[in-house]
């Protein structure tokens, strides 16, 4: 079966992308998964500099998912380029950088830096990490803030530019439009849902932070709706993310309009999940008489 799809300015060999933060810098998964078989890899969030992230504990398991407050620990853009990129670029797949910033200019620095690397296919602006600012605040909560960062990043790169959005806003559709207007080639959604876990015995948070981000199959129906809302009302490619853990999940996201999907938390329990999900989706499509993924994208018939 022809599994190719076009999404956010790239031609992907298939619509299965490894999401940022649950695949490390890609190479960590090589013992388990044939990285040549995924459509793309989005590496863990990178700042211009090395970051330690939040103190432990940073993770709490919840029904069918987990809460995290990692806070974007990472080696920073230069060390990534020196220590991981050469190894990662040996695989035949697209490498996408998840660009982060505490200040708006830092996003631009990361984007500008990686624009010079031929092995980097695209940049995903992480406008939506809930774990790095007071109370879970992030740029993608507001159309204006998102617009400014995307616009500034657009000016320094010709590579495809994606904006990763948060579901923790009442203006999701407006934010997606603003990103499109500022020149984004795609929006990736969703990042994690703001949530909390407490221990009534110690009377404190289960995490070292007040809130964390919820992910995994628990959020799939919420994420599906978010993707549907944006895909059906904004003229921009949508990359669907949120709890996807089977081939059928993948096809549901494509059906409501996603051009490709990212596989997140399920990788933590099953490092080769992305390969299984692709195989399942391909055989489901074949069973139903489809010839490729494009025949299902956006074909939702409503109620």
């Amino acid at each position, binding site marked *: 079966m022809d599994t190719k799809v076009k999404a956010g300015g790239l031609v992907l060999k298939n619509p299965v992308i490894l999401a940022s*933060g*649950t*695949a*490390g810098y890609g190479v*960590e*998964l090589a*013992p*388990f998964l044939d990285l040549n078989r995924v459509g793309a890899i989005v590496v*863990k969030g990178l700042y211009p500099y090395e970051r*330690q*992230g*939040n*103190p*432990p*504990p*940073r*993770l*709490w*398991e*919840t*029904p*069918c*998912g*987990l809460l*995290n407050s*990692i806070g974007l*620990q990472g080696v920073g853009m230069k060390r990534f380029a020196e220590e991981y990129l050469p190894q990662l670029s040996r695989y035949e797949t697209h490498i996408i950088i998840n660009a982060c910033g505490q200040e708006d200019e830092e996003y631009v620095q990361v984007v500008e830096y990686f624009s010079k690397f031929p092995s980097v296919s695209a940049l995903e602006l992480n406008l939506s990490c809930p774990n790095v600012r007071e109370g879970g605040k992030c740029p993608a909560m507001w159309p204006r803030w998102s617009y400014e960062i995307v616009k500034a990043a657009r000016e320094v790169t010709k590579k495809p530019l994606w904006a990763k959005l948060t579901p923790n806003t009442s203006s999701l559709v407006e934010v997606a439009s603003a990103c499109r207007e500022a020149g984004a080639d795609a929006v990736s959604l969703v990042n994690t849902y703001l949530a909390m876990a407490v221990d009534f015995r110690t009377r404190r948070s289960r995490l*070292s932070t007040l809130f964390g981000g919820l992910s*995994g*199959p628990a959020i799939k129906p919420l994420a599906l709706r978010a993707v549907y809302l944006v895909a059906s009302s904004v003229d921009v490619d949508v990359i669907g993310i949120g709890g996807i*853990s089977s081939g059928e999940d993948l096809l549901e996201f494509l059906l409501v309009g996603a051009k490709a999907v990212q596989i997140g*938390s399920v*990788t*933590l*329990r*099953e*490092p*080769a999940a992305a390969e299984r999900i692709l195989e399942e989706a391909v055989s489901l499509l074949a069973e139903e008489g489809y010839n490729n993924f494009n025949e299902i994208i956006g074909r939702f018939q409503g109620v």
Partner: protein
Amino acid sequence: MKQVEGEVRRKFFLKGNFLFLEIEGNFPPSKPGQFAMLSPSPSFDPFLRRPFGILFQDGNSLFFLIKIIGRGTRLISEKRIGERISVITPLGNGFTLKEGKVLLAGGGTGIVPLVYLASKLKGFTLLYGAKTRDEILIDQFLWLKAMPREIIITTEDGSAGKKGLLTQHIPQEDFSYAYVSGPWPMMREFARLYKGEAEFSLETIMGCGFGVCYGCAVRVRRNGREKIVRACMEGPVFKKEEVIWTQR
């Protein structure tokens, strides 16, 4: 490290709510101090695998000793003989093997990696502590007794061995090295009292066990700087001078 579909070969329950588990499969070789991630259930609830120290590896079998404390460990204990169980192994750095007269100090399930380590050592002193006699599982490791060694048992209520905390009975001899594994408060106290060289096996909450999620963070001191590292990759074994005992 590899993901392997194993099969429950043997299991029995021991006093004190412990499960002894033998899983058969085509596992890559491991070292003492390394661990494995076991999947409690093929369903999504509970969602994550659980980390367990390797008790022993022999031929095609991995052995575990698991204290049943919550849903994940309960589900693992309910697996039947012949049932499949997914294992990712071996994970983590493991202990550094040292020559000479060494001390192994284990509290509770902390005994697990030390049993594996003991099987590779010529001589050692084992200091093994638990709350009560029911939680002392030394009889299960009869083969340990066949080795040249000294074993000191402590229980908090005095129902077996010396009465009190393990850390109240650290032998006053000179050891060339100590290996410590157990609950945080025990290890913290051990580190405070014990003056010699030592390494500690730390337990943290883990998301993946193979280095991708950064959920297993521990604060350590390296080259004079404080750093956050992953217990599953840079650990779980850390040198005494590296560990910062207040984590939050």
